[in-house]
């Protein structure tokens, strides 16, 4: 175990999450890589497995994936696939994917046929929020649970699952507490630091992550010098943002990121996972009903974006940066509606389209600067 603590430890893990995973593997822990929360990590963890959320490598150009998958699909998921092709996930005992969005679904076959993981599974997810689709998803989770039991050799009792869910809910509560420190002006925690913590958590056993969160909260609350006060307070919106570059770029200028609505950000911990008598019901509610990913059909109208304006107001954000990947249909379809609904609330927004490489950094910097000026 490392001796670093709190934010320093989070930073160390952000820079190399694999090191800790390899240590745990050496101790006999099985590790499954997963792409998205529609394959709930709680189920894997309850069987004693370490769920390891795959992370992209924004600085690593895609070289191998071009041979297997067309260039105009989601650059993020292609980046993950590319890394697997390059052997960067060799330490994993298997791969779990889900019908998060079509891109992930379509890649499942191509990915697993060309990398041949020793264990693979696909969790299917319907698109409409109807009672029968919820039932379908519940059955999917039951199958997933069985599959994980077989893989791990451990039966997952309801008691164990409920215990694990509690641990994960502790994470959620701690993350909300940590985030609330960003409501201050200046925020007590920078966006950069916040993202490092989130990414660190993507590859740690939940208990270890909870300890880290405790340490970080104590450190942030007690430290004298936090981030400096800036002109603009921003909210970040988008799918997966697991690289610091963009937030650093924003925070190097006269703005700070105080809140987000992203896959690994508040979308995953804004609410607790309901602790229901049948734990599978709580999982369905958390990951199907309440998980506000644009891949789910929530009907027309802009009321479905109300929560974004609410979050922005709660954190006193002056504007929203939408960081959207090229060819991401779910987010790109919603983008005009999100802008429209925020405009009604007096919140300006800026859409940044990126191919998960930030190679056009100079132009992004200029656009962000212009946006900040507009806000001030």
């Amino acid at each position, binding site marked *: 175990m490392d001796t670093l603590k709190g934010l320093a430890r989070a930073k160390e893990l952000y820079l190399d999450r694999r090191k800790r995973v390899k240590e745990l593997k050496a101790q006999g822990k099985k590790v499954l890589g997963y792409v998205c929360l529609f394959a709930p990590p709680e189920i894997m963890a309850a069987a004693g497995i370490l769920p390891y959320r795959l992370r992209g490598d924004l600085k690593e150009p895609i070289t191998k994936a071009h*041979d*297997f*998958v*067309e260039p*105009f*699909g989601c650059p993020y998921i292609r980046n993950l696939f590319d890394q697997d092709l390059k052997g960067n996930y060799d330490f994993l005992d298997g791969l779990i994917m889900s*019908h998060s*969005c*079509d*891109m992930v*679904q*379509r*890649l*499942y*076959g*191509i990915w*697993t*046929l060309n990398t041949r993981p020793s264990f*693979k599974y*696909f969790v*299917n*997810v*319907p*698109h*409409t929020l*109807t009672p*029968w*689709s919820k*039932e*379908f998803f519940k*059955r*999917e989770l039951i*199958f997933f649970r069985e599959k994980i039991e077989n893989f791990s050799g451990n039966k997952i009792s309801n008691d164990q699952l409920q215990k694990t869910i509690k641990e994960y809910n502790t994470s959620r509560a701690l993350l909300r507490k940590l985030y609330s420190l960003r409501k201050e002006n200046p925020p007590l925690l920078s966006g950069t630091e916040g993202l490092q913590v989130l990414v660190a958590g993507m590859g740690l056993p939940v208990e270890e992550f909870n300890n880290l969160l405790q340490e970080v909260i104590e450190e942030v609350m007690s430290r004298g010098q936090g981030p400096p006060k800036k002109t603009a307070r921003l909210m970040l919106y988008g799918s997966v943002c697991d690289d610091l570059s963009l937030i650093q770029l924003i925070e190097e200028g006269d703005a700070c990121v105080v809140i987000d609505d992203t896959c690994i950000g508040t979308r995953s911990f804004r609410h607790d996972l309901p602790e229901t008598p049948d734990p599978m019901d709580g999982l369905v509610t958390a990951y199907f009903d309440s998980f506000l990913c*644009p*891949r789910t*059909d*929530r*009907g*027309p*109208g*802009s009321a479905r974006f109300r929560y974004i304006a609410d979050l922005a107001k709660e954190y006193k954000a002056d504007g929203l940066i939408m960081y959207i990947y*090229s*060819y991401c*249909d*779910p987010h*790109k*379809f*919603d*983008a*005009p*509606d999100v*802008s*429209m609904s925020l405009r009604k609330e007096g919140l300006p927004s800026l859409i940044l*389209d990126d191919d998960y490489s930030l190679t056009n950094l100079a132009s992004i910097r200029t656009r962000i600067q212009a946006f900040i000026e507009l806000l001030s």
Partner: protein
Amino acid sequence: MSHINSEMSRAVKSTETVRNIKKYIPSFYDRGQRRQLPETQLVWNMLGTGAEILRAFDLVGEWPENYGTLCAAQKVAMGFCQEAEAEGYSNELCSYVRNTLGYLRRCRDSGEVPPEAPLDGMGNPNLLLGSALICEPRYKWFQAIGTHFLNVPQFNDDPVSPPYDADLEDPRLAEHYKTQIRATLLAQISFLEQQTGKKLDMGRFSEIMKNSQEAMKYWYRVLELRKAVPCPMGSEDYFTAIIPFLYLAGDREAVDFYQDLYTEIKDRVDRGIGVIPEEKYRFGWLGIPPWFNMGLFNYLQTLGAVVCVESTYYVGQPVEVDLPDPLENLVERTWKTAQYKQKQGSEINPDICNPGVFSPGVGAGLVKRWVFEYKLDGAIGHRTRSCRATSMGQLHVKNKLAEIDVPMLIFESDMVDPRAWADAQVKMRFQGFLETIDARRSKKFS
């Protein structure tokens, strides 16, 4: 090169039946007038939701996807796509969708149907019947319409497709998926019952389903006859001949059309007549065609190449099911079709639990089989930039074909947006591809 080869031309059809399609299905082409009739309810409908259902409820349909192809063919799609982009929709998004959104924006802003809109526009729908099947743009489309333009009731069905490695013979899994197909179908029917105030007449629905099955049988036979050398029908006819089954399945007109097409093609095969006098190359086609330039297939023919089979809208062998309850029949048929398609190697194609007979692509395994059955020299993939659903996986098929030493050319443009078209470049690539095939042939025989 002749005038046929000029940029953006319409296709010259080869068969009598397809040339006369308007006579067979007047109800499709005069839908603009039909929706003016009193008491008529117009539904904007998605492919895959089942034309049989519309028929059973006497609804007049309009299909935004089909309207996209029409606008593309009439060279007005680009303007509509640009309108949608001005509304904030990215030019990466499905051009069928952009076409509809741009058209609606024009209607909203000017208060009237744009004068260039084909068939006097798409009418004012009473209902939107969408689908979460095949791709995300399909339900995001109606969500966007509902948010920005039209406040009418909408329903999206949600048949979920199993992944390629699911064990579809497992009875528990079969029930799991069938439950979903059944539930979403029943919900669609109950939505339509509520909106139209009519009950679904099961007797009539059975008849409609019988017609639909019969039409599909003839259509499948036509596709099988295209295995003949020389090939009796090419893509320029195929992509029009799909209209009855996509939009009028269940109508008697569709049966008549396919029956006559079958007779004509059978006669051609019996007499050894091909699409072109000298057939030098035979290809399979993957992806949606460039609707603004269907003359492309005629251009290929000037080079001696015929496209004999297409992955898009391919129906496969109709599955026979005979259950007394027509809805259960449909559920069972859908499931059996899914099982059949999975066996063909549908590693990327998710669209296999589809109660409407529609597929945006087929499995790599089936394309491999086609090479032998249709005696193909190779495959051509149209990578449509704005449709990931039918383009993604073409490279996978290319890799699979390479395993059996069959070449595939993938070229890029779009199904509706002509801005993506680079005529000289595409033609050069085709010519180069044919030269490669020539070179391979001479190597084989040397």
